[in-house]
Structures are given as C-alpha cells and as structure tokens.
C-alpha cells in the first residue's frame, strides 16, 4: 500500500535551503463513484449514474465560484492540486469550495490526485510550476476518462487555450465554461459567468461607439515589488482606504508611517480602490494639498447622502478629516491635511454588493445580452457594470452583484449578477438586504441542529432535582424585569432581607449550557451565529425557538434551570460574599420595566414583591453612585423605539427610547454579576478566559468632541474617564437637552467594546473604560449571546461542576472565536441600525414633518443636524447644490457658519427648525431630506 517516493523541494526562507519531504503514493484512493466496481464506494459522493463528470481547472474555480455554487453545476471532481492552488491564491474562495465539498446536498468529490499512484506527475526540467500543475490536471482527467470508460463522460472545463489544446491532444474532452453552460441550455446561468477583462473591453466598444471611451482613465497600478520597496523607503504609505460616507469621491487612508490620515480626493486619485481595500498611497506635492473648502457635503455627481441614524461609536462615524486645525489655533496658517493618490492595491476587499440596476430603457430589438449599470445601496461603492440576459426581469428587483475586475480604460468596475433578492420597495426584500449586507445567517435551523434539542414539552426532571450540583431555589421569590413583550427572558432577580440586616441578592441566569453541549451541531451553529439579531419587525435567534422562548426562558410560574450569582450585601451595597451555583428557580412574576417602575412608585403597594423591588432599587442606586465615583461614564445614545402596526407591520410612531429607574436597576445588578464572574473565571483560568474590554479612547478620537465643546464654551477634561465623567456632569447649558447632546457626542468618540482572550493581552489592557471596571465579561444573556455561553462553561469548570471543553486549551482557537463574536456582534448592531433606518424611511414616506433639530457639525455649504425626537442625523444645505460656497463662510474657531453680509449665523449645538421629507432624487434610492425652515 505504501509507495515511497521522495522528491526535492527548494524553499526560500531568508536563505535557500533544500527540503526533502517524503511523498507516499497510494493505490487506495477511489474515484468517488458509487457505481464504480474497482473502487471502494464507502466515500463515494458522486451520483449513481451521472451523464457527465466535470473536472474544473484552478482558474475556473477562482473566477467562476458564484456559478459553481449554483445547484445546476453538480457531479464535480475537485482535484487536490486545484484545491491547493486555489487555497494559495484566494483563501475565501477556497473556503467556499470546501463548503461545497462538505455539503451533503451537493455532489462534489475531492480526488487526491497528488497521492494517487497513477495520477502523480513528476516535475520536469524547465517546466514552470503552473505548467506542471496543468499537466497534473490533464493526467488526472485522462485517468478518470479511462477509469470511467463506458460509465460516464468526463469533461475537463478550462478557459486556458494552451491547456485546452494539450488536453485535446491527449484525447480528453474539454469545454470552456461558456460553451458548457450554453450546452446546458440555461439562459439564467449565463449571467453568472465572469468574463475575462479583455473580452469585456471589446464588448464595450460595440456598446459605446464614442472613441473617447477607450482612453485610459486610471493610472496603472505599480507592481508589487516596487510597492514593497517603496514602502520600505517610506515613499509610499500603506493603509486601509475608507470612503467618506457623505461623499464617495473622498477617501481617507490611515497611515502608520506618517501617523496621520492621508486624504484622497476624486476617483482618479483613488485609482480604482474600493472601500476597505488595503492600498499603497503616494503623497502629492504639498502645493496640491487641498484645504478645508473641499470638505463639503455635496459632490459632482448629483449624489448626496440622505439622513441616517446617529452612529453609536467612533468606529461607525465618518472620520473627521481635519483634526489638526482646531488644536493648532493659528487661523492664518492652517496646516493642510496631507493628500495623496493610490498607486497600488495590496489587498482587495471585494465582496457581494446589494442594490439595483440603474433604470434604463429596454434595448430596442431582440438583443440577448444587455449591459447595465448596477447601483449599490452602499453609496461608497461605485456603480458596477454587469451584463445580463434577463434585463427586463431585473430592472425592478433588488439584486446581488459581485465585482470581477476594474480595467484602466473603464470608468466603472465590471462585475456579474449573483442572484435576485426580490421586488424593490417591498419591505421583506429591503429587510433581507439588511441581513445580507451584514452577513447575517437568517436561514431556519437545520435538522441536525434541531435534533440536539431536548424533547418537548420539557419540564424540570427529577434527575435535575436530585443533582447535587443544583441548588433548589424554588422557594425564593424571584422575578424578572424586561422590556414589554420580551419572550427570551434570560435573567431573574431576587432580594431577601437577612436577619442580620444585610441583604441576599441573587441574579439568576438561564442555564443554557445545560442544553447546549460543546461539539454538537447546535453549539457549532450558535457559535457561528454569535448573537441574536434584533430588527425592528423581527428577531433572528442564535438558538432555536423552543430553547429561546420556552426551555431556557425564565418565564413566570414555571420551574426553570438557572445559573445563579448570590451576594450577601450590606444595606450600603458593600458585597460581603459572593457565591455561584447552578440552581432551579421558579419566577413569580415576569414584569416589564414600566410595571416594575409603576410598582415602585406606587406608595400604596406594600406587597413583598414591591418591597423587594424597592430594596433592590435602593441598593442599585448606591452601587451606581459608587461606580460613577470610580469614573464610569454615563453616556447617552439616541436609541429610538417604533410602534409597529400589528397587521401591516408598518411603523405607526417613533420616539426616543425612554430609560427608567427600573432599567438602571436591572442593569446595575447585571453589571455586578458580570464583574463578579469575570473575577472568578480569570482567577481560575488566567490564560484563556473570555473577557470584554473597552479601550481608552486616544486624544485624536476625542478631538472632535473637544472642538465642539470649546466652541460652545464648555471645557472638557479628558485625561481620565473620571475627569471626563465629572466634566460631562458640569457641562450644563441653559437648555435641558444640552447635557444629553454633549453626552451623545462623547459616546461617538469612543471605540466599541470587544471580546478577547485573556492570554492575548496583559492585564492593564483588560480595562473596560466606559464602566471603569478593571475586568468585565458577559454572563447574563446566554440565550442571545454566544460569549455568555462560553463564560457559563468557564464558570462551571471553575466551580468544578463540569469539565472544561477542549476548545479552551487551544488559545488560537479561542481567539478566533472571540474575533468571530466581535464581528457578529458588530454586524448585528449595524443590521439593527439599518433596520431602524429602513423603518424611519417608511414612516416618513407618508408623513412629511416639521421638527426641531440641533446642529452638531459645520460644513462649508451647510451643517449636519441631529433630530433628538427621532434619533436621526443628516445634512442641511444652505446653498443650492450646484453653487459652491458663495455667500457663506465658515468660522472654524467658533464652529459657526455665517452669511457674508452678517445677516444670519448658525453655530454648533444651536437649535434650528427643519422640515423632513422623503424624496427620491435618484431612482430606487429614496432618502430622507432635511431642509431649513
């Protein structure tokens, strides 16, 4: 069975070494056919009697992956050499192919041709790596052809002319991907084919007869070797390109080498870079640097951003481009931000884009292939040229498009159609777009996942009661306080006055890990989803519904399993002792925040439950005070709440989300539980605890806040979180909303908190800045966050209740889980916001409104306002769109915009009256327009 064959490989790692590796050739690798008589068929994946078996070459897989993912392509043999090449060239595509090979519904078989004794090919002298691999593919195809003689046809799919010619010489039947799809007779699939750029250019000629169109529009990208040496000599600067949300013709590249942001104006300078690409940038000569004026809101192409939701943190907000001016203080010599141009793209960030086709008349006559321009929903993405055979069908649809290439001669990148989402304007379609854009898996749970659930109806069994690790707390008067209509109740509380005058306070968290065991499909799915996603009209669960709403949910008057944190506290809210235990509880009431607040406020009520609530509230207030003394920030967010029509699901009303004392009370105890758990798990597992940290914001990040504050005469001290908290408290203006506004602006300067593995960082970095807690983690919502599930397992292991799953002994794996959680968490937030934005739009479509707004940022031709009532932020223009500047000028120091004749002045944080209306300046892109009254 073992055939030993060693061969020589040279690798370069600083110096040239000669590596010798064994390479065993085998005779037990089967062809993957169920019907094959000579091979063992246990691992067979191909169908019983396929008419044709496809063998794809590397470039076909790399470029046509969207097509290959279509179920029409099946019975494919993927050669291991092809997989290896794909892996080296594009890891994302590799993962997609691997997913296809593992999927039980698709018939993809991986044939290890490199280890098969008949298909292994020796390197030949003077042959390049690519040629050798192509030869290996042909040899394998030939082997298949002989092996399956009379059973099935073997078809080698390659778009490489040379490869095809040689294959034909060897007697292998080959097709290009186009001819193969044509032979299938599936018109719709033809749209999915990616065309090579050269072909594309020639088609453009036919389409557009203007000769000027062929001219070179963009500068050539520098070769990689030149970029690398340029980066070394600090001629070029590397960084991630971020396109301005307000103006797609302007982008920033954060560069470490010059420690500042380089601004890139216009598409010519951006040179075909997309938002999120890692690019190499060259600085322009200083006299070409542009000043403040160009940082205007509008742009050349009649496009502008409508109003949108207020970003929650610095990560989301468009970056302030000119942070230095304010600190400089010298208005006569404004130092301009460096501008540059992109000279090469180091790593592309191309993915799928959602949007629609630009409306165009149907081409006259019977033209089978039409060219169309795709307009992404995300304004930062340029229009994308696609070819389609189903133009009439797609014009009123939301579609997904992938980018293939961007030629120097073409103004727009070219791409191909991937799939249709649905009708434009349909709420379900638009909601689904939100999900797709944020990479959220909203598919129903698979049968394997559902098989992991306990049988329904579930109730606490006698085994659970008898289990010695589980404390019976059913006699305790526990209750839950949640938003109204909440079905996934994952926390309950109790508070008992002890005889010695102290209080026993308990936080009971749903015991999700009792049902979700590590290594099961259920656990894998949950760890992939990472978090539940809350959209305005629906919720996408992390765990299947029976767990979320029934088995784990700590509903009133049913016995449920819980993981409890119990403290003994003095009336001054000092913690005497902390205890953790698994438990069984029976909640006596599921209150909403409003109910709980009403009970506490109603002095006539003296029932035990209300007394408990009042005691807890008193404790919570003291804890909160202590936390604030330590420097925790009270930040404000502009969260809004919709009232949704139960029938049509249209929004009926929006308003700011009101925060009551009851909310703060519950929050306080959850924070305390999280902190207690964080301390406990870190003590037991110093290297692989999952914690949550909130990095201290840097000076630069707080700069915009300081600028604004200074302009309105408030002095903020940002040296520590304590100082900032205090100065925020003192920032009281004459109107009641002023303080909240400052807090909202402060919130925006912060980065987001992130999960991390404790072994990856040193302990000063564990700090949670916003809460002023040296340690923090998430423990209290295991039904809707996977991080909490992990923390539950860690805590159970720390208590010796169960064994630690093996995942935790692998730090890289834990780090990758933490990264995924951060990614999912962020996406869930973005999706939630997009959903709110979408519903805001639907709401205002029928209701143009006049309302009060605050100016939060001054621009050269207008300002950006914040509408407190609806949590909306958007630009207001003072000048007509086509005029530049004109009679207005900006006072940078005062953060004011003044009319030349001095008749009108608008300053930052000033109150203005605006009119809000939904307009559709561009087809299929409705937006909220704000105008000054």
């Amino acid at each position, binding site marked *: 069975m073992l055939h030993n064959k060693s061969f020589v490989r040279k690798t370069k790692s600083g110096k040239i070494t000669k590596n010798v*590796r*064994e390479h*065993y050739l085998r005779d037990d690798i089967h062809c993957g056919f169920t019907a094959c008589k000579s091979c063992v068929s246990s691992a067979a994946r191909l169908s019983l009697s396929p008419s044709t078996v496809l063998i794809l070459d590397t470039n076909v897989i790399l470029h046509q992956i969207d097509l290959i993912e279509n179920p029409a392509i099946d019975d494919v043999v993927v050669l*291991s050499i092809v997989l290896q090449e794909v892996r080296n060239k594009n890891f994302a595509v590799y993962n997609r192919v691997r997913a296809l090979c593992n999927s039980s519904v698709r018939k993809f078989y*991986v044939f290890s041709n490199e280890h098969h004794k008949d298909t292994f090919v020796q390197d030949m002298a003077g042959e390049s790596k690519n040629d050798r691999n192509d030869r290996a593919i042909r040899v394998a195809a030939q082997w298949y052809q002989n092996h399956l003689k009379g059973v099935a046809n073997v078809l080698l799919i390659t778009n490489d002319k040379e490869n095809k010619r040689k294959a034909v010489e060897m007697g292998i039947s080959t097709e290009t991907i186009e001819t193969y799809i044509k032979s299938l007779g599936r018109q719709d699939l033809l749209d999915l084919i990616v065309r090579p750029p050269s072909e594309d250019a020639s088609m453009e000629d036919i389409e557009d007869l203007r000769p000027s169109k062929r001219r070179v529009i963009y500068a050539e990208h520098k070769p990689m070797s030149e970029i690398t040496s340029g980066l070394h000599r600090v001629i070029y600067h590397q960084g991630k390109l971020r396109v301005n949300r307000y103006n797609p013709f302007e982008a920033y590249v954060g560069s470490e080498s010059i420690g500042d942001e380089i601004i890139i104006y216009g598409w010519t300078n951006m040179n075909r870079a997309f938002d999120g690409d890692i690019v190499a940038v060259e600085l322009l000569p200083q006299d070409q640097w542009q000043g403040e004026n160009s940082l205007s809101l509008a742009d050349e192409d009649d496009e502008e951003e409508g109003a949108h939701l207020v970003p929650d943190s610095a990560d989301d907000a468009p970056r302030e481009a000119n942070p230095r001016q304010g600190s400089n203080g010298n208005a006569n010599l404004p130092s301009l931000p460096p501008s540059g141009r992109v000279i090469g793209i180091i790593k592309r960030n191309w993915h799928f884009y959602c949007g629609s086709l630009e409306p165009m008349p149907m081409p006259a006559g019977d033209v089978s292939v039409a060219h169309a321009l795709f307009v992404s929903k995300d304004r930062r993405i340029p229009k994308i040229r696609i070819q389609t055979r189903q133009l009439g069908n797609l014009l009123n649809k939301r579609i997904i498009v992938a980018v293939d290439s961007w030629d120097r001669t073409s103004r727009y990148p070219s791409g191909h159609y991937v799939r249709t989402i649905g009708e434009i304007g349909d709420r379900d379609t638009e909601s689904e777009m939100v999900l797709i854009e944020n990479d959220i898996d909203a598919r129903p749970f698979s049968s394997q996942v559902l098989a992991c659930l306990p049988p329904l109806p579930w109730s606490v069994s006698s085994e659970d009661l008898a289990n010695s690790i589980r404390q019976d707390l059913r006699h305790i008067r526990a209750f839950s306080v949640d938003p109204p209509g909440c079905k996934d109740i994952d926390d309950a509380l109790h508070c008992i006055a002890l005889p010695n005058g102290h209080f026993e306070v308990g936080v009971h968290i749903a015991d999700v890990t009792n049902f979700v065991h590590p290594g099961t499909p259920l656990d894998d799915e949950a760890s992939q989803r990472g978090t539940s996603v809350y959209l305005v009209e629906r919720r996408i669960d992390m765990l299947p519904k029976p767990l979320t709403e029934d088995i784990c949910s700590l509903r009133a008057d049913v016995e449920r399993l819980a993981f409890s944190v119990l403290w003994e506290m003095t009336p001054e809210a000092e913690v005497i002792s902390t205890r953790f235990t698994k438990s069984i509880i029976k909640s006596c009431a599921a209150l909403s925040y409003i109910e709980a607040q009403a009970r506490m406020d109603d002095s006539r009520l003296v029932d035990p439950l209300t007394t408990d609530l009042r005691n807890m509230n008193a404790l919570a207030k003291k804890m909160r005070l202590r936390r604030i003394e330590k420097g925790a920030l009270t930040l404000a967010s502009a969260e809004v709440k919709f009232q949704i029509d139960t029938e049509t699901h249209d929004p009926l009303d929006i308003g700011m989300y009101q925060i009551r004392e009851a909310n703060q009370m519950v929050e306080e105890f959850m924070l305390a539980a999280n902190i207690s758990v964080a301390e406990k798990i870190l003590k037991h597992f110093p290297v692989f605890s999952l914690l949550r940290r909130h990095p201290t914001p840097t000076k630069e990040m707080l700069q915009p806040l300081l600028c604004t504050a200074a302009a309105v005469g408030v002095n903020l001290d940002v040296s520590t979180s304590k100082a900032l908290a205090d100065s925020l408290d003192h920032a009281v203006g004459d109107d009641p909303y002023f303080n909240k506004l400052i807090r909202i602006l402060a919130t925006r300067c912060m980065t987001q908190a992130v999960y991390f593995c404790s072994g990856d960082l040193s302990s000063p970095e564990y700090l949670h800045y916003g809460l002023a807690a040296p340690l923090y983690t998430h423990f209290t919502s295991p039904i809707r966050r996977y991080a909490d599930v992990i923390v539950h397992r860690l805590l159970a292991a720390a208590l010796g209740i169960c064994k630690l799953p*093996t995942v935790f002994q692998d730090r890289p794996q834990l780090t990758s889980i933490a990264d995924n959680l951060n990614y999912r968490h962020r996406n869930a937030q973005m999706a939630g916001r997009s959903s709110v934005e979408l519903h805001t739009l639907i709401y205002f479509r029928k209701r143009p409104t006049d309302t009060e707004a605050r100016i939060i940022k001054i621009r050269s031709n207008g300002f950006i306002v914040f509408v407190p009532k609806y949590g909306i932020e958007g630009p207001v223009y003072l000048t007509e769109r086509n005029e530049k500047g004109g009679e207005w000028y900006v006072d940078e120091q005062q953060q004011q915009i003044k009319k030349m004749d001095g008749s009108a002045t608008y300053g930052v944080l000033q109150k203005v009256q605006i009119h809000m209306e939904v307009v559709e300046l561009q087809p299929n892109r409705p937006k909220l327009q704000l105008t000054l009254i």
Partner: protein
Amino acid sequence: MEYVSPEGLRIDGRRPLEMRKLHAEMGVVAKADGSASFVMGNTKVIAAVYGPREVQNRSQQMSDQALVRCEYSMANFSTGDRMRKQKGDRRSTEISLVIRQTLEACILTHLMPRSQIDIYVQVLQADGGTRSACINAATLALADAAIPMRDIVTSCSAGYLNSTPLLDLNYVEDSAGGPDVTVGILPKMDKVTLLQMDSKLPIDIFENVMQLAIEGCKAVATYIQEILLENTKQLEYHRGV
C-alpha cells in the same frame, strides 16, 4: 495549517494511523561488537555497541552490575542546513540519557558485573522521530552484539494535530508545536519503559494517543523480530548448519 486534509490524508500522503516505511539492517559496522541501521521514512540512524568490556574509568565500576553508557549524536549533514553540531549540547545529552535509561531497563546488567557496555547512536538523516529510531536501532545492535536482554525495546511516537491522533510524526508534523508522545515498550512483557510528551493534552485524548503509539511500537516489534529471524537464518547459513 492543515496537517490532515478532510479527505483523511496527511501532508506526505499517509493516513493518520499509518507509519512511515521501515527498513533495518544488522551488522553495518564491522568493527563494533554489534551494530544496526534503522530507517523510518527519511529518518536514518546507525547504532554501534561495544562490550561488555572492561570498565575504562575504574571509579565508575560497579561490582554488582554492568555499566551502560550511551552517546547520541547527529551527523553534521543530517539536516538540511549544514550546521556544525557541537557535541554534548543539551538536547543530545538529554536524548543520550533517555536512550540509556530505556535500554538499561531491558539489559540483564546483573549478569555482567564489573563490565561496561557502550552504545553509540548517530543520526545520519533527520526527519522527525529520531529518538524512536535510535532506540530501535540500538535494540537491534544490542541483539547483534549478543548482549543478554529481557526483551527487545521498541519505540514509536504519536501526536495530535487538527483534532486527529497521528502515528509516527515526520519533521513537518513534529515542528507544528503540537503534542508529541514518544513511547518505548517491551513488547513481549507488555511493559512501558519510556514515555515522554511535549506540550499538553487532555487526559482522555492523551490515553488515545498513547495507545496509538503503543500500537506503533508493536508494529515496529513485529518488524524487528522479522529482521532478527532473518539475521539468525543468515548466520545459520554462514555456519553451514
């Protein structure tokens, strides 16, 4: 890094439970009392045994048993980069000690008091698992030198990468930094004389991996027994029996 593909093949084309190709030869150093070479894939070692002979350093002489000495070294050309390996570095001292202790457990030292047995092992080509290969070669050399032993000692390594137990790690797999369990057994007596592990493993997985290594040792033992038998037949033939 992917050490086991989803198709169940390792980088070099073996399946997880397969060993590399074995090859052994006896009597490769004519001058020594006993010698052998042992090849596991691309790992090639040579062992020579001198003794039992008079103790060179009188102070080390023991009146009730033989003194066993072992010296492990790597040839300068044994790895890709031709570095000068100085003698007596920490690694080779450690391996020398390990080999000596493992073999001492099976040599009937009390039969040869006041004498000394020298075992020299040298790695000619290194590709992972040199420790195991050295022990296997030394066993054969001891047998060749007709030194009385309780049983032969055989050794094999096993590791755990990509959540799969792997038998007989080669250099690439060895340098992955995962757990690497080396086991030496007395196959007939079914006893373990050597157990070493790098890195960490949960206990239940460790038992699996160790069991796998023991299976490997048994396979090596079968092979070594074949070689011994063949060698004996050769000797018979030469004597003209």
